């Protein structure tokens, strides 16, 4: 059975729901007692605790997959959740979901750890006392009685971005019932500016949808579309589709990026122009002028930038209808508007970019957080219902939300954690996790997905739906009824079941439309030019913990930030020039002063950072995140204002002389001229397809003294396409989730003891002001002549007939010679007891198919041997061969761009064999004659010849 085939959900109530938590933990006992390698005493007596009633359709010991959706900024990411005996253990992308197509981002992978996080809110709290939902229900009755008189005056609901049709209809119902009540939306890293830009351009909010696969020339104005919260995974797939010469008739899309701080997208660019945020606006005006969109005042760019601009303009004009200009969420509304106008003039609308009605539910006039705070100050808010949001921590500093709360008698907070806001609330209500609740949500294109629970709430959590239902005084308050009722007329029972099984409600994508430009409005909207400030401060959501909501997630905290390889902290990213000017080195603490506010933070020198830009990531410095996240890093929100949420002009920087220890997983970003990561240009490739291996000392592998072993039934191998890798590190965290890889903590990372089985190396090439950046995922190479095996004195790492370099944990005594002797340094060692042996819920998350390693044992990538063996057993039972693609390694399955291929290299037809047949194929350190089974496809760039020589 392919690990990714969703099993049809039985009568949906039976989806693990019959299990109340107690049974459920007991059911786990059998597998739990198995955690860890046995030590020196005899194994403990185990118990088997069978169900009272078995859940329908479950076969004990076999995993099942259920389709549902996880939310990011309110947008749906379709996933399949692997479920072992009622325990969600792993998340995969849903191939049928438009935002996933089988891949996921790092957050979806981490969601399963969040579900099992022991620090989650577990009980209803009134101030500091534990109470119950019943008690809150009683209170609610009193309130609604009052609201009935006042038509809801003084009642306010604050949510994050919402796409859930059910929820928005509930909110409508609420406003119908209580006309005086108000709904506000607060999303720290939301799309306000983009929507405002759309309003400017079209006079109405619209959502745009990019078709990167159709574009030949792409210009990104500070837009990191590869990590777009709503559609990053899908955009990455589309973008790479257009970058594969083999499948595009020897052509590649060309990407121009203008940005202030390096991003994944910038790292993929063929031409990247570092400009301060403010200069990007200027650049946009120039482009607009050149393309005759808006007639704006001329203002000097330097020669190099002008030249860049000229060539770009030429390229864009040469590709009318197959060009694409995209603007980042941090840019001012009118820049977005310009972008829309430019796309229109280039005839891209309908081809590479499409518009539809907004996907997210909009609160309408005066629905912003600012309006709410205004009302709070005015004392006109008597009951504030906060659904999921955490404004006390992440509201812009100038609003002084916490202070305004003083005037609010009743604050009710529904949240996964009793966070900063929950701690201030009169009532804190535990929110059920997405994997515990019934709900629904829309993808970036409006496609709807029914969110179904994988497990009954572990704690007393309830969903926003259930809370609003209670507020509306509705009889049925169970999540399933609420959602089912909403879809009643749309889906009959069969369609409902089908929707649950496939994870998408068919044909719900919003229709595209072509709104007309209000050109004159645009002209009027253009503000007078502001000269760029000497220093500007960029505030961005953190690459791994986002706006702070993931701060208590060990996997994400320890996941190296894609472009700095830092873990567990945020730092102020500064340009090499600035560092030189102020004599700063990594870890020096500086004081960033923005008018009256100042923060002390360590700096990190970021090659490619715009000279005058300082980047600080939001989300750190949490005070009530939980045991993992509290006090980590530096809170950037105090420097954030409603006026300048993303880019604050004229900040001061001062060196303090103090230092701070940052924990990175990579310290050397220069390849030292070694041909580990090979790159070339499209032109060069077409001229000489074999340029990649030309310089190799040996064609193929060097000769060997030893006769080859007879080939096994299969020859497992992997191919990693560096041309497709965007360095998002989803593979790293997927591997961590699949293989029970422990989190070691900042101190251990600093000592160089991180445990990731597949790391993503980062190399810079060229001038530090604007280098080329390359990412290279490095799992075990599965060498046929494995150096690690020969030096192990106890046969703890040996070869099997199918070419796997297996690590037998229970035989390992821990000499570590294997690691010393591994040229690729992919082996990881349990220097201390890293795996948490106490927390029950963490045990419950672990994959029962993978041994939990104890202290003193070496470990490494296994090509997900548990998946290979599962497929093997299924195939062998039927005495058939394993089909190509039947085994997907965790890293391969999650990869948004399908850069990783795995399979039987001996089988000519297999995808991996086909990939390895490409002339771009090469192996790392081949001259050592280790004969790796993991090989790479060289990376290609498609530079504009006119710009190439001078960059």
């Amino acid at each position, binding site marked *: 059975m392919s690990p990714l085939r969703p099993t049809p959900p039985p009568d949906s109530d039976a989806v693990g729901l019959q299990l109340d938590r107690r*049974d459920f933990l007991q059911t786990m006992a059998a597998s739990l007692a*198995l955690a*860890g390698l046995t030590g020196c005493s005899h194994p403990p007596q185990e118990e088997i605790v*069978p169900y*009272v*009633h078995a859940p329908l359709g479950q076969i004990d010991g076999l995993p099942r997959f259920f389709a549902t959706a996880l939310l990011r900024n309110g947008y749906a990411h379709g996933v399949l959740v692997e479920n072992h005996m009622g325990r969600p253990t792993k998340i995969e992308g849903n191939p049928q979901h438009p935002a996933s197509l089988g891949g996921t981002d790092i957050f979806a992978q981490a969601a399963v750890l969040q579900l099992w996080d022991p620090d989650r809110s577990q009980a209803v709290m009134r101030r500091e006392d534990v109470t119950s939902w019943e008690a809150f229900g009683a209170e609610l009755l009193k309130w609604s009685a009052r609201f009935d008189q006042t038509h809801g005056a003084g009642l306010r609901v604050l949510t994050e971005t919402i796409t859930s049709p059910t929820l928005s209809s509930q909110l409508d119902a609420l406003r119908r019932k209580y006309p005086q009540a108000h709904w506000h939306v607060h999303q720290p890293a939301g799309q306000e500016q983009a929507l405002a830009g759309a309003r400017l351009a079209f006079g109405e909010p619209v959502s745009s949808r990019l078709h990167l696969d159709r574009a030949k020339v792409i210009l990104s104005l500070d837009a990191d579309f590869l990590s777009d919260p709503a559609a990053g995974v899908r955009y990455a797939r589309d973008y790479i589709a257009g970058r594969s010469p083999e499948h595009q008739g020897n052509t590649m899309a060309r990407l121009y990026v203008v940005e202030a701080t390096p991003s994944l997208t910038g790292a993929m660019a063929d031409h990247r122009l570092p400009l301060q945020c403010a200069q990007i606006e200027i650049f946009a005006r120039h482009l607009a002028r050149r393309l005759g969109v808006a007639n704006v005042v001329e203002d000097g760019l330097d020669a190099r930038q002008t030249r860049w601009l000229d060539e770009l303009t030429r390229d864009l004009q040469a590709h009318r209808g197959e060009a694409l200009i995209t603007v980042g969420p941090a840019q001012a509304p009118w820049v977005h508007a310009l972008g829309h106008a430019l796309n229109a003039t280039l005839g891209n609308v309908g081809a590479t970019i499409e518009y539809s009605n907004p996907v997210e539910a909009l609160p309408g006039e005066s629905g912003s957080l600012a309006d709410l705070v205004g009302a709070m100050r005015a004392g006109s808010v008597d009951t504030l219902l906060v659904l999921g949001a955490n404004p006390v921590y992440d509201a812009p500093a100038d609003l002084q939300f916490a202070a305004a709360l003083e005037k609010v008698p009743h604050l009710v907070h529904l949240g996964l954690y009793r966070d900063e806001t929950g701690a201030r609330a009169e009532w804190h209500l535990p929110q059920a996790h997405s994997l515990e609740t019934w709900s629904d949500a829309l993808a970036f294109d409006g496609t709807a997905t029914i969110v179904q629970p994988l497990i009954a709430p572990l704690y007393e959590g309830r969903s926003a739906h259930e809370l609003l239902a209670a507020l509306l005084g509705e009889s049925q308050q169970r999540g399933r009824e609420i959602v089912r009722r909403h879809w009643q007329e749309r889906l009959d029972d069969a369609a409902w079941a089908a929707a649950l099984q496939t994870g998408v409600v068919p044909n719900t994508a919003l229709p595209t439309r072509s709104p007309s430009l209000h050109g004159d409005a645009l002209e009027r909207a253009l503000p007078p030019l502001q000269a760029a400030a000497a220093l500007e401060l960029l505030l961005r959501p953190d690459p791994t913990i986002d706006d702070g909501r993931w701060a208590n997630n060990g996997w994400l905290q320890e996941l190296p930030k894609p472009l700095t390889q830092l873990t567990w902290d945020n730092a102020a990213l500064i340009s090499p020039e600035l560092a030189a000017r102020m004599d700063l080195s990594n870890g020096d603490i500086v004081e960033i002063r923005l008018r009256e506010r100042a923060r002390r933070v360590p700096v990190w020198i970021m090659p490619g950072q715009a000279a005058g830009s300082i980047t600080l990531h939001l989300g750190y410095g949490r005070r009530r995140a939980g045991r993992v996240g509290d006090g980590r890093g530096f809170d950037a929100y105090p420097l954030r204002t409603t006026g300048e949420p993303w880019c604050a002009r004229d900040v001061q920087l001062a060196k303090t002389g103090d230092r701070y220890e940052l924990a990175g997983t990579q310290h050397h970003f220069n390849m030292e001229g070694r041909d580990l990561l090979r790159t070339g240009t499209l032109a060069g490739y077409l001229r000489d397809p074999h340029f990649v291996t030309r310089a190799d000392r040996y064609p193929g592998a060097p000769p060997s003294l030893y006769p080859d072993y007879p080939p096994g039934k299969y020859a497992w191998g992997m191919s990693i396409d560096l041309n497709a890798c965007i360095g998002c590190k989803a593979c790293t965290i997927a591997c961590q989730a699949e293989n029970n890889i422990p989190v070691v903590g900042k101190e251990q990372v600093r000592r160089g003891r991180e445990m990731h089985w597949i790391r993503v190396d980062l190399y810079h090439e060229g001038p530090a002001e604007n280098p080329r950046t390359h990412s290279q995922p490095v799992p075990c190479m599965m060498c046929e002549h494995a150096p690690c095996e020969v030096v192990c004195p106890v046969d703890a790492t040996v070869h*099997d007939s*199918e070419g796997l370099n297996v690590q037998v944990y229970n035989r390992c005594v821990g000499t570590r010679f294997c690691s010393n002797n591994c040229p690729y340094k992919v082996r990881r060692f349990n220097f201390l007891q890293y795996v948490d042996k106490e927390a029950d819920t963490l045990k419950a998350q672990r994959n029962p198919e993978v041994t939990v390693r104890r202290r003193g044992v070496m470990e490494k990538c*296994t090509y997900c041997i548990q998946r290979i063996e599962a497929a093997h057993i299924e195939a*062998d039972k039927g005495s058939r061969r394993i089909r190509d693609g039947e085994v997907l390694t965790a890293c391969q399955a999650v990869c948004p761009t399908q850069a990783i291929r795995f399979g039987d290299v001996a089988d000519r037809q297999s995808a991996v064999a086909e990939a390895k047949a490409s002339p771009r194929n090469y192996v790392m350190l081949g001259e050592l004659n280790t004969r790796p089974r993991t090989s790479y496809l060289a990376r290609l760039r498609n530079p504009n010849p006119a710009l190439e020589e001078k960059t």
Partner: protein
Amino acid sequence: MTQLFSSRFGFFLRLGLIAALGLAIIAVFAWRGVMAGPAALNEPLEQPVPFSHKHHVGDDGLDCRYCHSSVESSAFAGIPPLSTCMTCHSQLYTDQAALAPLVRAFESKIPLHWQRVHHLPDFVYFNHSIHIAKGVGCVTCHGKIDTMPLTARVAPLTMQWCLGCHRAPQRYLRPRDEVFNLHWQAKDQLATGARLLREYHIDTRRLTECSVCHR
């Protein structure tokens, strides 16, 4: 100068050394015994309900799969949910004291805690379904279960023991349709085994590789 040691000294010393050696050997075996596992061989464990395979299989002739329903499809043979027991025991022997815990558990929905008889370390991934599919009989590992009033382990379950079969499966294989038959005997085991080895496409080379059982 005088004699420092009695004439017997040497003799007793040698005696002592031999004794020490003997003790050491005994100690080693004792330690191995301890490591062998929680439950001793052929000794039934205390169970919440004195379930008798002899009665259910031997006398009533229930098929293994009636209770161990996932044995053909999953690594885990499956321990029946209480509802399975109650299909009969809601009518039969309801008054029996021995069955009281079962009935209580069923009504209170608090499951029974059976003691595991066949225990493998967590780093060993045994899979029932593939063994069934390749013609390894239940009796081969679990013994004459149909004669056990209380269930006990009959095999050491050491790696050595596993290898005994993995190195020469033909000595134990049987036709698929005889897998659940506890009394089947081959006329000529080696010949049958060798034939089945081919029929079932068993890759003996792979059987002794670490990756087959350890993940």
